[in-house]
Structure formats: C-alpha cells, structure tokens
C-alpha cells in the first residue's frame, strides 16, 4: 500500500484516537467512579480518581452478597464451559468424519438454534425446570446456558476439525487405535486452539448471561453476578460507587480471557457464529 501524505496520516491518527477514546472512556469512567469517595462522587463528576478510596471495593465484598454471586457465576461458567466442550467436540467431530444422513441439516439447525432468542426458550425451560424440581438452582442455569454455548461449540468445532487432515488419524487407526482413541489422542490435540477457544467463549457467554438468570433463579443465594449486580441497583439506589466497583470486578476477568483467544474469536465472528 502506498505511503500516506502527512495530512492524511494526521487524519488517520486523529480518527484512530477518536475510536480509542470513545471505546475506552466509559470503562475509564467506570474505574474512576469506583475509587472516588462517595461524597465527592455524588457532589460533582470528575475525570480524576480523587479523592481516592478503595472503600467501595471493601464494601462490595464485606457488606453485600457479591462474593456469593461471584462464586455462583464461577461455578456455573466453569461447568458450562467444560460440558460444552465435552459434548460439542465429539459431536462436531462425528459430523465432519462420518457421512451421516442429515448432518448438514444438523449444522444448519445449530445456527438457527444460535439465533433463537433466549426469551423464547426461557418460558418452557422454566416450566421444565419446575417439573424436574430444578427451578432456582445453579444446575438449571448450566443446562440453560448450554442451549447458547453448544450450538456455538458445534458450529466452531465443525470448522476446526475440518482443517485437521484425516491421514494422521488413519495412521493411528491402522496401528490399532479405536476411533475414540484417535479422536482423543490425535484430532483433539491437533484442533486444540479450537477447543480452547470454544471453552473460553462458553465461559464468557455463561458469565455474561442475564436473561436465563432472570427467568430461572430467584433467591439471593442462587444469584449470579449479572443478576446480583442488577438487584443491587434496585436495592440500594444511588450506590453508584459499589455498582461501578462490581462492574469492574466482573468485566476484568472477561477482558483477560478474551485477550487469550482474540484471534480465534475474530475467526468465529467472521463465520457469523458468535451471538451479538
């Protein structure tokens, strides 16, 4: 590509700066608000974290149920992520390696399932959970989150397993390995970036879900971070410092995790596989 003229370069940098500022300002303001003393916070907005205090974070962890919400979210997200990979990977593998009747239809259904609004499934899922005696449990949340993450996993892994050449597995099969062994010892390691991406995506999707948590759980001890934070807004109105502290605490793990799989995440986006 041609070199840009100086004024064009200046325009590019100005544009890029604007994008970065508009993107990061709300997050910056969240952090600033989370560490300002409450009295100052409500007196006058400021761009500086002054007068500085960590009181809000201390309050969040000592006076509210936030630690419980955090633990619940962690349990649900880890279980969802592991189950998604455990069920989704073999499924995608079988669709790629075997010419099963209706496999293409199955892949399309995954995509449709992925676009189905959570709220449509929420009503009957709630009824189902009540019948199974699972309403207001973390288990019901894991099951519900799988309806979002599993289509994503199958769809993504379908793409990843297709890039694994069958010849290596065939060599293993000739040596006497079973198909399950070939899958586990050959295909999975070769598609490992995919497996990792799927696991982390599932974790993020489960962690950020609000709709299923709203419908399926009700008692305070079963709330996850999204619902817990939303409930804090209603319960202690104007506690913006704590809300911003809580927001920071639940966003930062997502940013760290996301940075690990950015590249594959973008591949996923390009395939239209990630819910927006």
């Amino acid at each position, binding site marked *: 590509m041609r070199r840009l003229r100086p004024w064009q370069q200046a325009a590019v940098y100005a544009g*890029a700066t604007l994008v970065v500022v508009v993107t990061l300002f709300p997050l910056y303001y969240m952090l600033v608000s989370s560490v300002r003393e409450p009295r100052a916070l409500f007196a006058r*907005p400021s761009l500086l974290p002054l007068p500085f205090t960590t009181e809000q974070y201390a309050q969040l962890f000592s006076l509210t149920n936030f630690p419980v919400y955090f633990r619940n979210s962690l349990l649900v997200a880890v279980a969802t992520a592991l189950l998604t990979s455990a069920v989704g990977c073999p499924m995608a593998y079988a669709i790629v390696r075997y010419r099963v009747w209706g496999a293409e239809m199955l892949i399309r259904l995954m995509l449709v399932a992925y676009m189905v609004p959570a709220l449509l499934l929420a009503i009957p899922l709630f009824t189902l959970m009540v019948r199974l005696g699972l309403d207001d449990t973390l288990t019901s949340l894991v099951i519900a989150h799988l309806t979002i993450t599993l289509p994503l996993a199958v769809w993504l892994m379908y793409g990843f397993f*297709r890039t694994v050449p069958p010849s290596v597995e065939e060599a293993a099969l000739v040596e006497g390995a079973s198909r399950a062994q070939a899958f586990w010892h050959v295909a999975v390691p070769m598609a490992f970036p995919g497996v990792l991406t799927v696991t982390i995506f599932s974790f993020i999707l489960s962690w950020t879900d609000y709709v299923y948590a709203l419908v399926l759980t009700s008692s305070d001890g079963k709330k996850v971070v*999204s619902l817990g934070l939303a409930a804090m807004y209603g319960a202690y109105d104007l506690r913006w410092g704590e809300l911003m502290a809580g927001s920071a605490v639940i966003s930062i793990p997502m940013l760290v995790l996301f940075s690990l799989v*950015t*590249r594959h995440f973008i591949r996923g986006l*390009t395939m239209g596989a990630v819910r927006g």
Partner: protein
Amino acid sequence: MSFPGGGLRPPSEAGAGPGVAIGVRAIPGPAARAFRLDPLVRREWRTVVGFLGPGVLFFVVLVAVPTVSTVLLSFYRLESLISTPRWVGLANYAAVLGEPRFWNALLNGIVYGAASVVLQVALGLPIALLLNLRFRGQALVRGTALVPYVIPTVVVVFIWKWMLDENIGIVNHALKLAGGTPVSWFSAPAIAMASTVLVGVWAWTPFVTITFLAALQTVNEELYEAARVDGATAGQRLRYVILPAVRPVLVIIVLLRAIWMFNKFDVIWMLTQGGPLQATEHLPVLAYRMAFGLYDVGGGAAVATINFLLLLAVVAVYFRLVRVDET
C-alpha cells in the same frame, strides 16, 4: 491494552481458517440425497451414536421441544407457568393482535432494530476502513475497538446509566459546562428510545467493525492497485473496487445485526424496562411482561411465537445467501 499473538489478526492471514466461507449462492435442499448408510458409519455405528447422541438428545430436549412447546402454549390459556393449561385455540392471537400495545411493541422493535443496524453499520464501516490502513499502533487500536463486545451487558447498562444520569451523570455535567441544558436521557419517552439505541451502538458496533475488517482483507490487492494506477480517486476505488468486493459480507452483517437487535431483550429491559410509558417496549419485553408479570403465559407465548416467526423469515433469507458447507 495489548493482546498476545500480535493483536487482532484477520482470518485471511491465519491461513486455512475454519472451513466456513461466507459467500453468496443458493443451496440445494438437503432432502435431495436419499437415505442410505455410509459403509464407514455402518461399521462404526457405536462411535457415531456415542459421539452424536448426547448432543442431539440435548438439542431435542432443550431446544426443539421448548421451541415447539412455546408455540403450543400460545394456543392455551394459563395464568402461571405451573397452572393447568386450557385450550383456547387462536384466542390468544386474536387478543394480542387486537391489543394496541402489541402494535406499539412491534413498531418500537422495528424502529429500535432499524436505527441500531443503520447506525452500527454506518459507524462500523468507516472505522473498519480506517483500521484497514497501515499505521503505527494499528494492532493495538484493532484490539481496543473490540473491547466493548466482551463487556457483560449488565456492566454496559450500568456504566451508561451512570454516565447518562439526569442529575449527577457526567454527560449532563459536560452539557451544563458547555452552556447547554441537561437532558432526561431515560425518562422522556422520545429521548429514551434514542438513548437505548446509542447504548447498543457503543456495545455492538465493534462486531460490525471487526467482521467488516476481516472481509476487507480479502479484497484483491492487485485490483485495488490497478485502479489506483489508472488514476481512480480514493472515492472511486471505494465505490468500484472495495464495496462490490465486500458486498456479500455487508449483506450478512446487516441481516445478523437485524436478527440480534430485533431480539435484544436484556439491554432494553435493564435500561428502561420498556418505559417510560411503553416508549421502548418491543416484542421480547412485551412477551416477558405478559408471561412473567401479567400472568398471561398463553398471551406471552403468542407474542414470542409471532416474534419467532418474524425472525425465521429473516433467517430464511440468511440461509439463501450463506453457504455453510465447502469453501
């Protein structure tokens, strides 16, 4: 912030990416193939069943059955999710369609969806074109531009509610400093819709930017250079080389954004709960309110079903345009 692995790399640079290409052509129906078992499948059927079984079972029980049962519920009258249903035929649909609130919600959904898609695409495209240029720090800016996409919705909502607070929000504070008058971002009906759209624009424009950026990488560099050598201006190159090349992706982005924005529940629910005066109430919010708030599960299911049918129409268009098989 910087991402390991060289920041954001578009799929075209990543070599043979997962094999789903976005392209435009009609797909032959899957029913064209006759039912017969592949020899390999016959020989290893235990493995096939073991690998596919749990997933398929899960789908049937937790996606297919609930979807069908929502549709079925819409033909029943029931006050709560656990009371005994009574068959009422199409009465719920008649009631819903005769309700001005339904048409208000449908219209709101269309306004919200259309405004969101237009703004997200109108901002996402130029940003993608910008990030496609070479400049120092490009990888870093690309990484940053995607950040809002992974911030939990609840956090997005609270940050914006806080910044747009009528009395102590920083935006109104800035407006006052600039000599303007403070704005009631979420309590005035006309403005509340605009505010909810804007919050969505911040959160989901990155999706458009990155998808479009990935598509830009596939534009034929030689064609672009040839146009430049032949004296095409930047505007002409954009119009005659870049846009035709990325148009298929553009169509898909618009469809996907339309599908997702039309069904977005959590943002609107947390920002305004559909208020003030139902100014931001769209079909998903109405369905939730009817089923979980107004004790009219059948009516809520009817609204959800209508919403689903509208969605299926768009999904059908999507499948006519996108192939999911080979590259």
